[in-house]
């Protein structure tokens, strides 16, 4: 029986609860504007932990039979750029002792490695893919890495840009992939050269890579999607 003196009778408290529910939902919409501040407050710590978590050694790979070509979706912010056959050059510049302009034959002459790894998109889907090509570390070593370098700025033919920490770029499974699933890389997947690694989300894996620039610090342009609010480290 409800007690008249009780300020929180059964009926009243139920009414209060029902009344509070829409407030919560409305509050949710107002909270959308705070998202960026929440990210700014928590990402530095998260990114530091991610970097600590990431080892320097090789991670386990998948069996070639687990590759699922149909699962790999195509994402591009600006279509597919066209290359004149034979004109492709990869520029390696910045904090290196020998700036390079490598053609595809020079990349093919480096030791080739295959990685069967899970490609994870920030959207939520993933696909197991077999990438092959030279290690990014070998290309950087060819140019003579300066000890001052801490970051790699990566530019693509479609104006996409990215920046990576050096440890992730030099990881033994980070490739400049020229082949996918045993065949030359298709244009939509980044031909002739794209990044591939098991340790980064898909938006870090630039397609149609034309330039690697070794830097001491991160600039204002940290990445096409990062500059719009995505996390920079994006480790897996």
């Amino acid at each position: 029986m409800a007690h008249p003196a009780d300020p929180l009778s059964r009926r009243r408290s139920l009414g209060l609860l029902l009344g509070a529910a829409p407030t919560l939902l409305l509050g949710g919409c107002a909270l959308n504007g705070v998202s960026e501040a929440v990210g700014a407050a928590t990402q530095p710590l998260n990114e530091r932990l991610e970097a600590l978590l990431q080892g320097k050694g090789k991670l386990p790979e998948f069996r070639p039979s687990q590759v699922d070509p149909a699962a790999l979706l195509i994402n591009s912010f600006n279509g597919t750029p066209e290359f004149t056959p034979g004109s492709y050059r990869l520029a390696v510049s910045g904090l290196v002792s020998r700036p390079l302009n490598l053609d595809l034959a020079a990349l093919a002459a480096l030791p080739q490695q295959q990685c069967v790894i899970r490609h994870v998109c920030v959207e939520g889907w993933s696909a197991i893919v077999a990438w092959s090509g030279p290690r990014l570390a070998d290309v950087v070593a060819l140019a003579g890495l300066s000890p001052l370098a801490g970051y790699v700025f990566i530019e693509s033919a479609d104006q996409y840009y990215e920046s990576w920490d050096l440890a992730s770029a030099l990881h033994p499974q980070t490739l400049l992939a020229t082949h996918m699933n045993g065949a030359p890389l298709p244009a939509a997947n980044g031909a002739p050269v794209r990044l591939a690694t098991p340790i980064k989300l898909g938006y870090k894996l630039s397609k149609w890579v034309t330039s690697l620039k070794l830097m001491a610090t991160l600039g204002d342009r940290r990445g096409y999607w990062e500059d719009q609010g995505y996390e920079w480290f994006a480790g897996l």
Partner: protein
Amino acid sequence: MPTSTRRPRAPIRYAPLWTRAFHSFNLLVILLMAASGLQIYNANPVFGGRGGATVPELFTLGGWLAGGRDWHFGVMGLYAANLGVWIGLLIRQRHQRLAALADVGTLRASNNTPKRRLAAHRLVYTLMLIVLGFSLITGMAMYKPAQFWWLVGPFSFAEAAGHDSWQVLRVCHLATIPAIALLLGAHVVLSWRVGGLRLWRSMAV
């Protein structure tokens, strides 16, 4: 039956302050995690992929994928720490309040309604803690699938049937939302039946 002479009520026995604090904070944080999680869901629906149906904006938090991720990964540390310390303290200091096999026995054998409700309620809230723990495990596996490959491994059980461990993880992680919503409904109803407003107030901050 109500009688004309009311017995003077015993004072409310409040739960320890730490229990109330962990309980309330957990409620707040799981609302944020669920809403931002549904925002992330909408970027690529677990069911149907790019063509799949999305969750109404009303139930999402963040406005777009990056905003949802800001919340989800911003709050996950607080959620994990709160849940971990809370479960640890419960096991150490109040394990007699957690469900045990005896509660299943009560539900099977007893005809005493209040006793049955109490047992059911203990099972429900203990199960909630387990489901929340499961959301943490599946979440960690998807947050760092390469570094925590050993955490992904157990979810490859359906590979022979053509279900990739990633999709299994996504379904499992998502399933914790309806599971918790159902258990929350049962938790509210049962706690009301067990102790009414006095029990609710004993858990309020």
